[in-house]
């Protein structure tokens, strides 16, 4: 394709957009609107997953209770052993005294009950954080067999519940996002189809005069691309702005109560931009091409 033809096609494309202003505005509006929906839902799903994940992590600790009256050496040996295991992310040592303090604190008003206890019945312990929940079983089995380890406790129920919740969230979220993605693609290509169809006559006329397929298709493709681009651009602005403000507002008003912060806007900018531009431009130009094919009788 020569430079002249490229120039011509670009010129035609922009003229086409301008000459069919009303249509163009309507298409851009629809593309933007669909992407805004997609973006908002994407962000919501992302945040819900994130909250579940954070909550899960809070519970995701293995308690290794040690036997009473162990030598310092043995204790630190056990610590080293644990540290050297695959899948262990971090290990912390907690003395029985500290554990009791923590317990009292946690129980709050119920702590009176603990007053009556003279001997601290709590053991010294190691608290293990794993790289992934999947490693739990393995680590637990190994640690249980160390000499000096009295008991290994893991909030299996809670963790399992949280894992399944978070799995569910991820699955449901993905399903919803995929459905939304498909619907968005459908709506955008429909919109482009309507836009192209309204210019059936124009397309036919061009062909009658001898315009080659490329000459007819080129400008339409670029038009679709530009409409998609502008649409996604607008959507990006709207979504990021809304999210920015919503993030501030929600973190301000609710974070204390929800004890979790929503995903930072800066983290998602790149992804949103890539996704939107890809969809907008991709569907815009491909949609045009496919729609116009129907009218390219020759």
């Amino acid at each position, binding site marked *: 394709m020569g430079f002249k033809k490229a120039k011509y096609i670009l010129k035609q494309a922009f003229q086409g957009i301008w000459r069919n202003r009303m249509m163009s505005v309507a298409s851009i509006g629809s593309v933007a609107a669909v992407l805004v929906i997609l973006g908002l839902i994407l962000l919501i799903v992302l945040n819900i997953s994130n909250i579940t994940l954070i909550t899960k992590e809070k519970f995701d600790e293995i308690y290794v209770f040690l036997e009473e009256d162990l030598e310092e050496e043995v204790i630190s040996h056990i610590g080293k052993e644990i540290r050297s295991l695959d899948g262990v992310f971090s290990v912390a040592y907690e003395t029985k005294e500290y554990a009791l303090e923590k317990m009292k604190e946690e129980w709050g008003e119920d702590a009176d009950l603990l007053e009556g206890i003279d001997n601290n019945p709590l053991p010294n312990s190691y608290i293990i954080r794993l790289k992934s929940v999947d490693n739990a079983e393995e680590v637990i089995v190994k640690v249980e067999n160390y000499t000096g380890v009295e008991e290994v406790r893991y909030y299996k129920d809670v963790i399992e519940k949280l894992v399944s919740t978070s799995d569910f969230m991820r699955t449901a979220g993905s399903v919803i996002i995929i459905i939304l993605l498909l619907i968005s693609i459908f709506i955008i290509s429909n919109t482009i189809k309507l836009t192209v169809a309204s210019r059936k006559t124009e397309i036919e006329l*061009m062909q009658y005069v*001898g315009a080659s397929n490329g000459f007819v298709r080129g400008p339409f493709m670029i038009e679709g691309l530009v409409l998609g681009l502008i649409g996604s651009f607008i959507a990006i602005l709207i979504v990021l702005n809304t999210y920015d403000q919503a993030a501030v507002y929600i973190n301000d008003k609710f974070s204390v109560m929800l004890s979790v912060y929503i995903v930072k806007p800066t983290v998602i900018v790149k992804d949103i931009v890539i996704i939107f531009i890809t969809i907008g431009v991709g569907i815009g130009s491909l949609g045009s091409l496919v729609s116009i094919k129907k009218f390219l009788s020759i």
Partner: protein
Amino acid sequence: MLEFMEVSKFYKKQQVAVKNISMKIKKGEFVFLVGKSGAGKTTLIKLLLKEINPTSGKIYYDGNDITKLKNRRVPELRRRIGVVFQDFRLLPKMTVYENIAFAMEIVGSSAKNIRREVPTVLSMVGLSSKANNYPDELAGGEKQRVAIARSVINKPQIIIADEPTGNLDPETSHEIMKIFTEINKRGTTLIMATHDRAIVDQMKKRVIELKKGSIIRDSEGGYYNGL
């Protein structure tokens, strides 16, 4: 350069448009197609432009059977033929100037050539003052002249004009015919479907008369109504 061999075209519902047409048109000829409304003149032209395909028969253009032409080569064929369509077929969203420039752009003319040629041909058909009007803003005869200007702009080998004076007053028709005659003299083949008896009778060129889709007369230097 142009030959129809036993060409027939039937539309759905058995409607006969042209039937068993055989004719040869040589390079540089000037041919009138005449015949009552619905006789098949426009159909012949559409066949030649491969806008429709014949039900049977072959159409040769410069030795190639265009009924066998691949779809993607059709634009080439059309670009070699200048056409004044009976319904003008101007692009409604382009001005007069742009409509004609478009015909040059699709054959790859340079911007310089376009800027030089378009005004020339517009003044030839007397429409210089309407260059920036859109087709909707033109009188019937003006649209027709734009179509005529577009048909000649690329200096094609063949010009086909379907009823090019139907919306023109006798005086303007006369001007247009002068242009066509001039172009024809320089070697361009001219095929013109018309109902304008005065023009046909006066030009004394080859006349092919159709009736209900068949050629009923093909006379050199003929008149509109037989003789």
